[in-house]
C-alpha cells in the first residue's frame, strides 16, 4: 500500500460556482477533471496526504500586502478571498508542522497582480502568494522566502511586489516576453536598489521541452537557492508550459513537471495558470502531488504521449545554455535598475495595462535610499478607473526614521489634497490606514 514519504496537505478549491465568463480560459472546468483524476487515483486516501478546506482571507490580509484602489472590496470577489485563503491554509499547514509540504490547488490565480491594484491583470486581481507570504511574516515573524515561479507567463506581479525586498528571492522561469503576455521578465530586471539580484528572470524560448526546463532549474535555480538559504521555498506552480496548452508555445510534459517539482523541493506550491484542462491539468497536477509527497510518479503520463514529437530542437538547447550562463554571470555582477535618483530617493515610472479589465495605470514608485533599512516605499498612481492615489509603506524592519517618514508622507498627502485615495501600510507598528480625500 502507498504511504506518503513527505506528509502533504492539499487545499483543493475549484470554486465550481465562479468564472470570469462561461468560455473564458479561467473557468470552472479548469479544475473539474483534476478533481476527477485525483479522486479516481485515490490521492486523498493515501496515508500522509490530507485534503484541507481553505481559509477565507480578509480585507486586512489583502491590505497588508497590496494597495487596492479605491479599496479591497472593489477589486476582489469572494473567490479571490478564498483563493488567497487557500494559499494561507496551505502555508499554515507547513508552518504549524501539520504536514511537511502543502499544495494549494485553487483558482483564480494571482501572480500578475502587482503591489498596486486597480483591477484584474491576466486573470489575477490579488497576488495570492504575496498575501500568503505577508500573512506568514505577520503571524510567524520574519522569514527568508524564495518564490520560484514556474508558470509559463512572467510572474510580473510577484516581481513587482518584492522588487525592493532583499529577504525575498524571486525567480521566474517563463516563455520569453518577446513572444508572450505580459512581455516582461528579462534578465536585466534584477530588483530595486536595496534588493539587487533578488529578482532573477529566466526567459526561455518557445518550444522549450523537459530538457530545457530541467537544465535551467539545475544550472541556475538550485545554485541560487543554495546561496540564498531561504527558510521557505514556494513554487508558483503554473502549468501552462504544457505542450498542449492553448495559450502558450512551450513543450513541457507531466513527467517534466513532476521531475522539476522533485528537484525544486518546494515547501509550498500554489497553483497559478494552466489552461489545457483536459489533456494536461489532470496529469500534471497528479504528477505534482505525487512528486511533492515523495511517491512514484513514473506512470503518470498524458494519454498517447510521445516525447520525441515534442523534443526541443538542438538550437533551442544551445540558446538555453547560453541564456543560463549569462544569467548566472549577471547575478554575480548585477546591473542597477533603470530609474532616477533625487534627494535620497530612487524612482521609476511604470505604465501598466490591465488586460482583463481594460484599465491603463500610470505609476511612480519611489524608495527611500536608507542606510539602516529597506526604506519607505511610495506609490503615486492614477488610472483610467481612479484619479491620482497614494500608497505608502514602511516595510518590515523599517528604521524609526523611515517609519516616521511614512506617516509624514501619508499625512502631508491628506493635507495637500491632491490624492483621491491614500493608503498606509506600516509593517513595523502593524498599522494599516486608508483615507479618501
Amino acid at each position: 500500500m502507498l504511504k506518503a514519504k513527505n506528509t502533504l496537505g492539499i487545499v483543493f478549491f475549484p470554486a465550481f460556482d465562479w468564472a470570469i465568463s462561461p468560455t473564458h480560459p479561467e473557468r470552472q472546468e479548469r479544475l473539474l477533471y483534476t478533481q476527477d483524476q485525483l479522486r479516481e487515483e485515490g490521492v486523498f486516501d493515501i496515508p500522509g496526504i490530507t485534503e484541507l478546506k481553505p481559509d477565507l482571507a480578509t480585507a486586512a490580509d489583502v491590505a497588508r500586502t497590496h494597495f487596492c484602489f479605491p479599496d479591497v472590496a472593489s477589486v476582489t470577489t469572494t473567490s479571490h478571498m478564498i483563493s488567497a485563503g487557500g494559499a494561507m491554509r496551505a502555508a499554515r499547514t507547513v508552518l504549524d508542522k501539520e504536514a511537511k509540504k502543502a499544495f494549494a490547488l485553487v483558482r483564480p490565480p494571482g501572480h500578475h497582480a502587482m503591489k498596486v491594484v486597480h483591477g484584474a491583470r491576466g486573470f489575477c486581481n490579488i497576488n495570492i502568494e504575496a498575501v500568503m507570504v505577508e500573512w506568514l511574516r505577520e503571524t510567524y515573524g520574519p522569514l527568508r522566502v524564495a518564490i520560484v515561479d514556474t508558470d509559463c507567463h512572467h510572474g510580473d506581479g510577484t516581481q513587482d511586489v518584492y522588487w525592493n525586498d532583499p529577504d525575498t528571492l524571486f525567480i521566474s522561469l517563463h516563455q520569453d516576453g518577446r513572444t508572450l503576455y505580459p512581455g516582461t521578465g528579462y534578465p536585466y530586471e534584477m530588483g530595486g536598489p536595496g534588493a539587487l539580484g533578488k529578482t532573477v528572470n529566466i526567459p526561455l524560448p518557445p518550444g522549450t521541452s523537459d530538457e530545457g526546463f530541467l537544465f535551467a532549474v539545475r544550472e541556475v535555480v538550485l545554485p541560487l537557492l543554495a546561496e540564498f538559504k531561504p527558510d521557505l521555498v514556494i513554487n508558483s506552480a503554473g502549468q501552462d508550459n504544457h505542450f498542449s496548452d492553448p495559450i502558450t508555445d512551450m513543450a513541457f510534459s507531466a513527467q517534466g513537471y513532476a521531475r522539476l517539482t522533485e528537484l525544486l523541493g518546494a515547501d509550498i506550491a500554489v497553483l497559478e495558470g494552466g489552461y489545457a484542462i483536459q489533456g494536461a491539468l489532470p496529469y500534471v497536477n497528479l504528477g505534482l502531488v505525487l512528486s511533492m509527497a515523495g511517491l512514484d510518479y513514473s506512470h503518470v503520463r498524458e494519454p498517447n504521449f510521445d516525447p520525441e514529437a515534442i523534443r526541443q530542437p538542438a538550437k533551442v538547447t544551445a540558446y538555453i545554455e547560453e541564456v543560463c550562463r549569462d544569467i548566472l554571470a549577471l547575478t554575480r555582477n548585477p546591473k542597477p535598475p533603470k530609474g532616477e535618483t533625487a534627494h535620497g530617493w530612487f524612482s521609476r515610472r511604470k505604465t501598466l495595462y490591465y488586460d482583463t479589465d481594460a484599465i491603463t495605470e500610470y505609476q511612480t514608485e519611489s524608495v527611500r535610499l536608507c542606510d539602516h533599512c529597506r526604506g519607505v516605499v511610495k506609490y503615486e498612481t492614477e488610472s483610467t478607473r481612479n484619479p491620482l492615489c497614494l500608497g505608502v509603506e514602511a516595510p518590515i524592519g523599517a528604521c524609526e526614521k523611515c517609519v516616521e517618514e511614512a506617516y509624514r508622507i501619508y499625512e502631508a498627502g491628506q493635507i495637500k489634497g491632491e490624492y483621491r485615495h491614500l493608503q498606509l501600510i506600516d509593517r513595523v507598528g502593524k498599522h494599516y490606514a486608508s483615507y479618501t480625500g
Partner: protein
Amino acid sequence: MLCGIDVGGTHTDAVLIGPEGIVACAKLRTNHDDLLASVREALSSIVAVAGPRAITRLNLSTTLSTNAIIEGTADPVGMLVSGGPGIDPEAYRLGDHYFVLPGAIDHRGRETAPLDMAAVDAAVAACRAAGLSVHAAVTKFSTRHPEQELALRDRLAGASEFVSLGHSFSGRLGFGRRIATAYCNSAVWRLYNRFCDAVEQSVAELGLSPDIINVLKADGGTMPLGVSRGLPVQSILSGPAASVMGIIAVCDIAEDSVILDIGGTTTDIAVFAAGAPLVENEGIAIAGRPTLVRALRTRSIGVGGDSAITVDREAVRVGPRRLGPPMALGGPAPTLVDALNIQNVIALGDPRASFRGLAAAGEAVGMEPDEVADAAIISAVNHIRSEVAAFVREINDRPVYTIFELLEGRRVAPSRVYVMGGPALALSGLLQDAFSEKVVVPESFAVANAIGAALARPTFSVELFADTAAGRLTIPSLGLSRAVADNYSPAAAEGEAASKLREYLESLGADLTETPVETVELSSFPMVEGQTQVGHNIRVACQVRPGVLAAYKKAVSQSC
C-alpha cells in the same frame, strides 16, 4: 410483525416488534464458530413466544463477511485490473492472483487505449491454472465507461462462478477503493451465499414465511437477501449501523446530536445533523483498505468497559488495549469497569478483586486504589469528550468545492449526547459533568441494536454522469448506460436519476412512501473547446437516506 436480529461480537440480540410495541426479545451469547446457530437460536426463541406466523419481515445483521475478510478465511480471487496512466496499479495489489492489463480510459470516459485481449486471455488462463473460481474485474474510470469491465467479464465466462465488476458498487470515483471493494465482494461470495442458503433453510424449517428477508448494510439501511447474494460486501460492518438505527427508533432525535455507544473494547461515536445520521459517502475501510461501501459516519476509539488501566508517573490511562474481562469477573488486569465497581457506581462480580487490581496498579506510584479509580474514570470520560470534539471539528472542516458551500456551509453543533451500551448508565453522570451538551440515556439501550435492525428501511444511492458533448450517460450502480441528446438538461438528469432509483426500489418491493428519494448532488459544468461551448458535464447523486419505518417507530419510541 417485524423481526430484527443483530449478530454482534459478544451477543446476538433479537426482537419482534408489532404495531403496539415490542412483542418478544432475546439476548444470547454469539457462537463465533457457527454464526448460523446463533441466528437459528435467536429465531427459535422469538418463535417460541410469538409463533411462526407472527414474523412478516425478517431483518438480519451479521458479522460473517467482516470476520472472513479480517481473519483471511475468504476465497482467493482472480483480479483483473487495468489502470492506464496515473498511480501504478501495483500500489493496489491484493491477493496472489493480481493481473495488471494494458488498457486505459480517461476522466471523461473515453477509451484512450484498448484492452490488450491477448494479455487478458493469458491472465484468465493463469487463474484457471491456479484453480480459482471467483474473480473481479476493475478498470480505472469504469464508472464513466463500463465497457472494458464488461469485456473482461465476457472473457471470464465459463472460467468463473462469480465475477465482481468494479462499476456495479458505486458511481463514485476511486480506483483503489473499487479494487478493494470488488476483491472483498468476490472473496466472501461463496461463504456468504452458503450462509444465505442456510438462513433460508432455517426459516423454512421453523415454519416461518416472512414476506421478505433483508440484510443490514453499513449505512444503516437494508437490502433484500436475494440482492445481497451478489453484493455481499455491502453487508460488512453493519453492527455499529444497527446501534445507530436503534437510537433513531427509540428516541425522537430532531436536533444535531452525538451518539456514544460504549461497548466492552471500544466506544463508537456517531453524529446526527438535524436528527439524521451522517453518511460517509466515500465509503468505509475494511481491514485497513478504503472501499466504496457506503457507511454511517462513525468513529471508534479504544475506550470501553473492559479497557485496561495503566498507571505511570505522568498519568492514569484507560485503553486502548483490552487484556481480558474485568478483574471482578476473573480477568488479569484492572479495567474501567473495575474502577466503576470500587467507586460503587456499579456492582459487578467480586468487588474485592477489582480493589486488589487497582491497589496493585497504584502502588508503584504511591496512589490509593480509589485515587486510581477516580483518575481512570475521569481520564476515560475526558478522552471520550475530546474525541467527540475532534470528530465534530473534522466534520465541520470537511472540504467543500463551491463558494456557496464555503460561505453557507451548515455547521453541525450538537446539543445532545445520547449514550448507550453496557457502562452507559454508570457513566452518564460523569459524562454530564464533562459535556456541556445534555446527556441522555435511552431506556431500552440494551437491545436498541436489534430494534434498529428490525425497523431499518431500504437504502440505495445512484450517481448519474452525463456528458452531452460525448452524447453519453451512465448510472453505474444500476448498470445503466445510454446515449443522450445534446440538449439534455440538469433538471432532466435529476429527474432520470430519481426515477431510476424509484423503479429500482419498487422492484425490491420497497414501499415508496417509506423511502423518500432525495438529491444530494447536482452540478453541471459547461464544456468548452476553443471559444465554443460544446456541451455540459452533468453529475447527479440521489439517495434514500437511512431511516426507520415511521409506522412502527411510534410503537417503540419513548421520551428520552
